[in-house]
């Protein structure tokens, strides 16, 4: 079974530029999560999709971050414009249903973003 795929793996941009990350979850998984992990901290949930609907985006800085999950499969996360404090690893995860705190989340390798 293929795992969660993310691209690119690394990205370096200047502040005020825009950037997009792509995630392909495990086939058949209904729920997709985007997390931001700053160095030395635990992952912070940005947005959670169930199929192609948003179920939680309470911690997404909506003035600069946007995300979509077309057709309930792949997802993209965009930052526009980027700030220095957006430097972090962006992790995508998926789970089969996402309706219980007892479900396992499967994480991708992450995209490491450096904003200069």
């Amino acid at each position, binding site marked *: 079974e293929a795992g969660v795929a993310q691209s690119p793996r690394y990205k370096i941009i200047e502040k005020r530029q825009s950037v997009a990350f792509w995630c392909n979850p495990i086939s058949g998984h209904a729920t997709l999560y985007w997390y931001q992990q700053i160095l030395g901290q635990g*992952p912070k*949930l940005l947005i959670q999709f169930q199929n192609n609907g948003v179920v*939680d985006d*309470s911690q997404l800085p909506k003035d600069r971050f946007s995300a979509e999950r077309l057709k309930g499969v792949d997802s993209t996360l965009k930052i526009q414009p980027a700030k220095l404090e957006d430097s972090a690893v962006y992790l995508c995860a998926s789970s089969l249903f996402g*309706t*219980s*705190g*007892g479900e396992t989340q499967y994480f991708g*390798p992450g995209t490491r973003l450096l904003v200069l």
Partner: protein
Amino acid sequence: SQKIEQNSEALNIQEGKTATLTCNYTNYSPAYLQWYRQDPGRGPVFLLLIRENEKEKRKERLKVTFDTTLKQSLFHITASQPADSATYLCALDKTGYGQNFVFGPGTRLSVLP
């Protein structure tokens, strides 16, 4: 305010000893608590899950306890090996139905040969 904390940023232990990692939370009432392992440059990997009505859960050399009165989970690795060196994260679901997961800051474990 709601918080989830892990006992220390880093823990060094000798090979063969038992490592004990602590996860404390305040102002949550989770039905589940999960533990993940994260290696440098990789995403977290699920290890164990414990339910609120379970006191203890075991998997090979791993053991997790959950005390809802103390609002604490302990994660033990027995007979630790250098290959166990990694960051260990605890996580809980704030809502009880799979939304709004919160992760602790992690404990970086180093097992010295």
